[in-house]
């Protein structure tokens, strides 16, 4: 017995090596930099593919919500070994909140009827860590967040998930269908090979809009301003011990 289908969420984010900068207007961050798949979502995709390779899962469907460049992220996941993709086009991802994404996923769950939804535990840009939990609540499925190990039972009716919690590990059993969010130590994502990247171009990617799915993605929040953390002020060199003592006493007032 194996699970029929898994939905895997992946978000297009600013690459983890890029130094993020605030734009001059102070309304957001500078966008024209290298983007790639969210690192935790890579782990989620890898886990789904490993389950498929272990014959525990039949089909891996990748979902990404975002602008048209998000297709690149879907293609990367397809090159890693996923079967097909769904692209939900949303132009302004800044205004796309976790609740809206969870609602989109809830609709896709109705359409695709998966046995499993795997997501990264959080995106490395907004660090929300909410989508998986909200989705589990919306579709009323059990959730196994921060998974560091996933074992599918022989009859594919249950999952044994080891979770990373404060100060240790917790092992829980959940019934399928379930929502899993991937933690850092779940696995080591593979690197897509060049031939597989070429093959991925032939795989199917459906494009949908939130309106098609009947989801209202209007933001409930208003961004007031975005600012960089305060710059560290430079230190000074002192000539002698006396000067140091003087500065500590009079300027720093620590003595």
């Amino acid at each position, binding site marked *: 017995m194996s699970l029929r289908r898994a939905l895997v969420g992946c978000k297009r984010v600013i690459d983890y090596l890029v130094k993020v900068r605030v734009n001059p207007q102070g309304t957001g961050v500078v966008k024209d930099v290298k983007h790639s798949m969210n690192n935790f979502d890579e782990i989620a995709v890898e886990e789904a593919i490993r389950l498929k390779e272990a014959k525990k899962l039949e089909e891996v469907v990748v979902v990404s919500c975002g602008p048209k460049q998000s297709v690149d992220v879907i293609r990367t996941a397809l090159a890693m070994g996923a079967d097909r993709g769904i692209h939900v086009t949303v132009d302004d991802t800044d205004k796309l909140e976790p609740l809206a994404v969870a609602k989109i996923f809830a609709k896709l769950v109705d359409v695709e009827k998966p046995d499993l939804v795997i997501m990264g535990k959080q995106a490395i840009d907004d660090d929300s860590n909410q989508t998986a939990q909200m989705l589990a609540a919306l579709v009323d499925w059990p959730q196994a967040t921060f998974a560091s190990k996933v074992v599918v039972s022989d009859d594919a009716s249950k999952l044994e998930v080891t979770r990373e919690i404060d100060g240790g590990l917790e092992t829980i059993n959940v019934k399928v269908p379930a929502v899993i969010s991937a933690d850092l130590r779940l696995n080591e*994502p593979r690197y897509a090979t060049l031939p597989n990247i070429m093959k991925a171009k032939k795989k199917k990617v459906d494009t949908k809009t939130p309106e098609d799915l009947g989801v209202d993605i209007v933001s409930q929040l208003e961004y007031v301003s975005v600012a960089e953390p305060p710059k560290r002020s430079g230190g000074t060199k002192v000539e002698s011990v006396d000067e140091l003592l003087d500065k500590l006493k009079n300027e720093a007032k620590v003595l």
Partner: protein
Amino acid sequence: MRMMRTCLGMHPAVRELYKRYIFAGKDYPAGLDVVRRRVKQEFMANKDLKTEEEVLHAVARGRWYFNNEFVPAIKLRKYRDMKKRYYDNQ
């Protein structure tokens, strides 16, 4: 794969290997420019290889390095960066 190498042009396996490095080089921590310079240097060091056997031997070495050093370096950097960002604040 073409078995005979014409005196003009590059062996297809060599070109394929070079492409692999450049493609993955975008994700390499030191950056694509460094990768391109170093890889080109290494490839040029083998430009005088004459026989098919010698070329394929060098390509095999290049593939080994790619799989066992180059890609793991990218993965390790990614893991360490995430660990530092989210797990080392205790």
